[in-house]
C-alpha cells in the first residue's frame, strides 16, 4: 500500500498525460502490488449498469421511427459531429498553454536569479562600498600593471574610471 501511495504521489507530480502514461505502462500496470490498489474489471462491473439491467427498450423504436420518418441520411457534414474534432484543438491549446506557462516560469526564474546575483557583480577590479567611494584594487593591461584614474564630478552621481598603459 505504501509502495502504491509513493507511486501515486509520483504520478500526480508528472505534468503531462504522456509522462503519466509512461509510468502507468512502465510500472503500475505491471506491478502486482499497484494492481491490487486499482479496481478490477469484476469490481467495476458490480457497480455499473449492465445491458441486462436496462430492461425493456421496446418504446424506443416507435419514438425514433416517428422522428426519422421521411428523412434521408445526410451526406453533408453535421455540426454536432463536427465537434468531434474539438478535442484535438483543445489538446493543442493545452499544449500551447503548458509551453507558455513553462516559458514564463523560466523567464521568472532567470529574472529572480539575476535580481539576487546583481549586488555581487560589481565589475572586475572595482569594489563599491556603501558610500559613494570607488576603489580599484588592481588593473592590468597586456599583462602589465596599468595606471588608473577615477573621476567623479561634484554635482553628478557619474563616476568615470580610466585605465591606461604604464609607458
Amino acid at each position, binding site marked *: 500500500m505504501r509502495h502504491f501511495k509513493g507511486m501515486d504521489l509520483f504520478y500526480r507530480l508528472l505534468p503531462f498525460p504522456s509522462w503519466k502514461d509512461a509510468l502507468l505502462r512502465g510500472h503500475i500496470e505491471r506491478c502486482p502490488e499497484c494492481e491490487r490498489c486499482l479496481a478490477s474489471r469484476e469490481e467495476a462491473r458490480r457497480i455499473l449498469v449492465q*445491458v441486462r439491467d436496462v430492461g425493456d427498450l421496446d418504446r424506443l423504436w416507435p419514438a425514433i421511427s416517428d422522428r426519422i420518418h421521411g428523412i434521408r441520411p445526410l451526406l453533408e457534414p453535421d455540426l454536432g459531429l463536427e465537434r468531434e474534432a474539438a478535442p484535438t484543438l483543445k489538446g493543442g491549446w493545452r499544449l500551447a498553454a503548458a509551453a507558455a506557462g513553462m516559458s514564463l516560469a523560466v523567464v521568472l526564474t532567470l529574472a529572480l536569479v539575476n535580481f539576487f546575483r546583481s549586488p555581487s557583480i560589481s565589475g572586475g577590479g572595482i569594489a563599491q562600498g556603501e558610500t559613494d567611494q570607488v576603489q580599484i584594487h588592481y588593473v592590468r593591461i597586456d599583462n602589465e600593471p596599468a595606471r588608473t584614474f577615477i573621476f567623479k564630478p561634484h554635482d553628478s552621481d557619474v563616476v568615470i574610471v580610466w585605465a591606461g598603459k604604464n609607458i
Partner: protein
Amino acid sequence: MGDNELVAACLQGQGEEFRKIMDIYKGPVMALAMNILGNRQDAEDSCQETFIQVYRNLGRFDPQRSFKNWIFTILYRRCLDQLKKKRRFQIAFNKAKHETPRGTPPDTAGAGRGQPLSNEILGRLNPKERIVLTLWANEGFTAAEISDVLRCSSPTARVYLFNARKKIKSVLEKSHAPF
C-alpha cells in the same frame, strides 16, 4: 449481415435496416448512457437523440472505423450535452431559489438496481472517467479503442482509466471497512 452492410442498406433507402442496427446496439448504448448520466429518463432521451443523429449521419460514417465506436462517440457527445443542459438548469433553479449553485447532484433513480451504493460511487467520477470505466469493464475495450471513442490520445484515455479505477477501489475499500 455486418455493420457495414446494414449501413449500406440504410443508405440505399431501406429504413427498416436501421431498426436492425438499433436492435443490435440499443442495449449497450442504453447501459452506457445510464452509467454516464445516472438515471433512466435522461439516458432514454440521449439514446433517442443518438440514434437519430446516427441515422442522419450514416453517409458520413467511415467504414474503416468501428461502427460501435462511432455510435459510442456520438452517444458520449449527447450525454455531455445533456449534463451541460442539466447543470445550466440546476444553476438557474438555484438562483431562482436564492441558493448557491452546487452543480448537478447525481440522480439515483433507475441506475444500478438493487445497488444503492452504485450511484454514490459513480458520482465521484467525472463523465469522462465514467465512460472510460464502462467501456473498459462492460465492453472490454482497450485504451486505444477508448481513445477512438473519446477522440483523445491513448495516453489520455489510460490516465482517465487509472484515475477511475483508483477512485472506485478507494471507495469500495472504505465501504467495506469495518466500523
